[in-house]
Structure formats: C-alpha cells, structure tokens
C-alpha cells in the first residue's frame, strides 16, 4: 500500500465479538416473534365468546418469577467468576442458574395442570386459552432451550473443561438467558396484570 498509511500498523484494530453480535441479532429476531404473540394477546383481551376468563383462573406466579429473574443475576455471577478463572465458583453459580430456571419451569407445569384439569382451559377453549398457552408456551420453550445450553455449560464447568478463554462464549449464553428473563417481564405484565 502507499506510504501515507492513516492507520499505523502497530495500532490495534479491534472489532466487536462476533458471538455477541450474532446473539444480539438472534435476540432481535426472537423479539419480533414475541412481539407478534403479545400483540395477538392484547388484541384479543376481552374478546373471548365463552369463559373461563383470566380473572377467574389466573393467579400471580410471584415465586417462580422471582426465581427466574434471580437467575439472571446468578448467570452474571457465573460469567464474572469465569472471567476471574474462579472455576468452582463458576460451576456453583451455573448450577444455581439451572436450578432457578428449572423451578420456574416446574411452576409453569403445575399452573398449566391446574388450568387444564380443574379450570378446563385449553388452547381450544376460547381466545384467552389460545393466546395464553401460545404466548406463555413460546416463552417456556425458550426457557427450555436456555436450560439445555446452561446445563451443557454446567457439565463442562463441573468437569473442569471451562477456562478463562471461554468467557466470551459463556457471555453469549448469558446474553440469551438475560433475553429470556426480559421477555418474561413483558409476558408477566401483559398476561397477569394488563390482561386480567
């Protein structure tokens, strides 16, 4: 190249991590999908032709929500620990995250069991059933995917295979998990507060 280089060769040329950028793009796309389900939920509030109605059958899932949202903190601690190369702390925090996520899923399963068996609310029952199960179910499926990823990370960490060099990759998974939790805040607000 010519001598008049505007970037001296010894200066660093750093670009954002492709993993984080890729995950941010995936989050953008997934947000759009969730938005469409949220719009359907809000549009159909109060429009069911038959019961049961949300007010009659929905209880606020406070405990499970606290578990899920706390798991964002625990996964953050896990990545900080890995960054410090504190391997056993990483394993511990990852285990906590998986446990909290599993409690959330379990709580959802119990809630759905009650709704289906005792309240006779299914996806076919009315517009409320349709939009409720699809939106909460879409979120739950994302929780499951996240738990699979986190469990794999937990297994690798427990085996001692995770090193400081993997921090960026764990951050990518953590970013996904934060997204899942943020979506829950929106779903909770729409379904259990606005929609009731």
């Amino acid at each position, binding site marked *: 190249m010519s001598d008049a280089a*505007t970037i001296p060769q010894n200066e660093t040329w750093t670009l*954002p991590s492709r993993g984080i*950028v890729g995950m941010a793009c995936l989050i953008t796309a997934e947000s759009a*999908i969730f938005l*469409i389900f949220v719009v359907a939920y809000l549009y159909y509030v109060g429009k069911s032709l038959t019961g049961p109605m949300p007010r009659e059958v929905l209880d606020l899932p406070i405990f499970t929500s606290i578990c899920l949202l706390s798991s964002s903190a625990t996964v953050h601690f896990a990545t900080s620990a890995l960054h410090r190369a504190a391997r056993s702390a990483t394993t511990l925090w990852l285990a906590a995250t998986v446990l909290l996520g599993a409690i959330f899923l379990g709580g959802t399963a119990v809630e759905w069991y009650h709704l289906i068996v005792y309240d006779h609310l299914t996806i076919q029952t009315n517009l409320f059933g349709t939009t409720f199960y699809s939106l909460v179910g879409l979120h739950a499926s994302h929780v499951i995917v996240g738990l699979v990823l986190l469990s794999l990370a937990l297994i690798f960490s427990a085996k001692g295979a995770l090193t400081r060099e993997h921090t960026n990759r764990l951050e990518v998974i953590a970013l996904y998990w934060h997204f899942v939790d943020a979506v829950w805040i929106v779903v909770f607000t729409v379904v259990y507060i606005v929609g009731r």
Partner: protein
Amino acid sequence: MATQTAPLPLTEPSRRPATAVLHEWITTVDHKKIGLMYIGYALLFLVVGGVEAMLMRIQLIRPENHFLSPLVFNQLFTMHGTTMIFFVAMPVLFGFGNYLVPLMIGARDMAFPRLNAFSFWVSVFAGFLLYFSYIGGNGLYGGGGAPDVGWWAYAPLTSKVFSPGHSSDYWTLSILLAGIGSIGTAINIIATVVSMRCRGMTAYRMPLLVWLYAVMSGLVLVAISPLTAAQIMLLLDRYLGSHFFDTQAGGSAVLWMHYFWIFGHPEVYVLILPVFAFMNEIVPVFSRKAIFGYPAMVAASVGIGFVSVSVWAHHMFTVGMTSAGNTFFVLASMVIAVPTGIKIFNWLGTIWGGKVQFRVPMMFSIGFLFQFLIAGLTGIMLAVAPFDWQLNNSYFVVAHFHYVIVGGILFSLFAAFYYWYPKMTGRMMSERLGKWHFWLFLIGFHATFDPMHFVGLDGMVRRTFTYPMDRGWGHLNAVISIGAFIQAIATLVFVYNLVHSYFKGAPAGPDPWDAWTLEWSTQSPPPAYNFAVAPTVESRRPLWDLKHPEDPDTLYE
C-alpha cells in the same frame, strides 16, 4: 496487497472422482461455494417459476379459455408467487451476498461458516418440501395437492374448513423453514460486517454493497420473524384447534393480514436493497466515476430500512380501516419515496460527467434505472389510498410489482451476473449473447408488463383463471402472453451463455472491468483463503488509490 502475477491454469477438468467432488460441495462451509450453490439453486427455481407463469399466460391468452382447470390455475399462481419470492429472489440475493461480502471487506470467510451451510441446506429442503405438495397434499375439494390459497395465504381461506387436506400445511412449513434459513444468513451477514472487516475498513470505508447487505439483513431479522410467528399461529389453528384466525370464535381475519404484510412489505425492501447494492457497484465502474454522494446513499439506505417497517397497511387500504389509519399509511408510503428517489438521482449524478461504457452489465443497469423509476411512480400512484381503492387487487398492481421485481430486481441481477461471473469462474461471458439476451428480454418484458397496467385500469381483477368475453380484454392479454414467451427465450439464451462461457469464455484475469473494490485484487476465481495477506485499506476504493497514486480517494474522504 495480494495481486496475483503468475497466470493460473483455468478450469482444468477435475481428475478427482465425481463422488469426491460431490462430497466436497455438500459438506463445504466456504462462503464462495455456498454462494454459488444458492445461485444455482435459485436459477433452477427461476425456470420452474417461469414455466408456471407461462402456463398461466396460455390460459389467459383469450377469454373463457379451457386450457387449465380453475384448481390448477389457482395452484399455479400460488406456487409461482411463493417460488419466485422465497426460492428464487431470496436465495439468489443471499448467494451474491455470501460470495461478495467477505471478499469486499477483506475477510477470509463469513463469521459463522457452519451456520452458513446449515442455512443453505434448510432453504434447499424447504423448496423441495413445497413442491412435494403436488404429490403429498390434498387441496381444496380434494383435488390436487399443491397449495392454492395465494402466496399471502389469507385467513380464513387457510383454515381446515376451507382448505382441507395438507396443501396449506406444505406452504406453511416450507416457508417457515425457508424463513429460518434466511434469519440464519442475516445473522451471519451482520456478524461478518460488524466483526470481520479488514484493518482500516471503518464503516464509512465499506463498499456500499456491504452497507446495503447489512441493512437488508437487519430488515430480515425484524420482517421474517412476524411471518414465522403468524405461521406458528396458523399451524396451531389447523392442528391444535386454537382460534387465532377463527372468525367463528371471535378471531380476526384482518389480524392475519396485518401480520402477513408486516412481513410482506419489508420483504420487498429486503429484495430491493441488495439490488441497489449491485447498482452502487456497477454504475460507477461503467461510468468511470466514483458514486455520487456516498454519505447520502448510506443515509438513504438506512432510512429506507427504517421507514419500510411502517408502511405495511398500504396493502390493506380496502379492508375498512379508519380514515385516520388509512391516512397514516398514505403518508408513510409517500415518505419512503423520498430516499428511494434520492438514490435514483445519485445514480444520475454518478453517470453525469462520466464516460459511459455500454457493456452488457451497464445495459442491464440502464434498463433497471428506467424501469425502477416507472415502478416507483406507479407505486406512488398506489400509495394514494383512494386510487388504490380502485386499483387494489387489479392487474395494475400485478403490473406494478412485476415492474419492480422483473424490471428492477431481475434486470439488476442480470447485470450482477455479467459483472461478477468473471470473478467467480475466471472467464468472461459472451458479450454477443449478452446483447441478444438483453434486447430479447427487454422487448418481452415490456410486451408483457406495459399492457398489464391498462387492463388493470379497465377493471380486470387479479387471481382469476379467466375473464368475461364482453370486456374487450382479449387482445391485450394476448400481447401479454406473447411477451412471456419472448422472456422465456431470452432466459434460455442467458442460461446457455452461463454454461457455454464456463467452458469456452475468454480468460478474465483478476480485474477485467478495471474496477476498484477489494474482490478485484484477488485471482479469478479467488483461492479458498481469499487473500494471501489480509489487506489494509485507507479509502473506499482501495484499487483506485493503487491505480491512481497521484489522485487517491484518500484526499477527498
């Protein structure tokens, strides 16, 4: 810089067994091979979609014709639209993007090569799944298998009640999968553009093609996802008995329309932005001038991306929205005309004062410029909601969007083929055959799509397998149909040119067009690793600076 000095042997017949070659291509994660496979796949479906169009035009060549039954016709227009959008336009544009973006930013490959391969093969599977419907589905009234609900698949026509059997499901599933492939590629392109640029290539030194592919990919992320969501809802309705679009249970048919067009309108911008990208590279080279107003072109492209997600309901002016709602979408649709018009003016500014060479890529580009101008103007007409109350769902709309897609996108794609074929294969395409291709296609295109505006203005409705005798539409429809055949012949000339030039074309060398972006600095075709030494750039046109050290772009940027 990695300019090759020693001549390379060209396209020697491979002495490896065919199975080894096949294995290499099926398992490749190289962006250039994947790009070529996308392009080849799209060309195959272009021929299929073209045959579907010709069959429809035979049926419509005269009124009350009985060449095709209504069911077959309805399947054909559904399959033609779906094929052309999802299995021709998207793959070919992703193919060019895959091939060119890493080369233009001086990178070795895309950010996620395995995701790249996955996205491609999912899309391939999706295309074949759609066509499997001819065998596997049962359409309306139990006759034939392919979907016949139109490519928008409006509810409640797609409910189990009105579409028994599986034809609609093949439509839904194949597009769902194609969408997943598209989202994967979009993620890849953005991550590549953000994280893999060579040293010195700041955002404002990226070629405009790279900018436009980045914006297009962002649009894919927010546009395809709504369709994916709506299709999940449709599947839930059809198989789990949910009521998203079930009007008997209080559901809304209009909700599907909103969701579809929130995808559908940005989708057409997804298709046109890469086309702008090609023009931004080709027009300057054949005018021998830098693009006029690079910053404005960047701003206009990003602006188009943003505004395009706010105009969707101009496809729904007739569904009974409030006057305020209609008025908003009129405004948004007209606003988007401004940055689009600016682009045309900037191309005009690029040509002005240049030295225009009428080689085949430029001829197709000129066709694009005039035809896209007309298409944009008929678009403005349609944005005037009361005018659209007359023209919606008439042949005027069909004429408008084919002017954009064929007259704009396809012409520009042809230009891109002739321009980058030498880089991809090491050989030049035949100029003589190219000129035959151009003139035949131009004549056929105008014979088909110019009269179509007039039958639309006269009240002819679209998606109709026939039309009444007493309306006087027979002559123009005959001209329209003949034009389709001329375009088919022109396409055959093009395909022959592609194949013949691969074996007998003149050797191209690294830089046959005397161009200025990084891909022209490597061999033709590029080695697997793209660049022997990772490049460093200091301006938008690194090769211009090399060729004109007395007047480099760095002085002006």
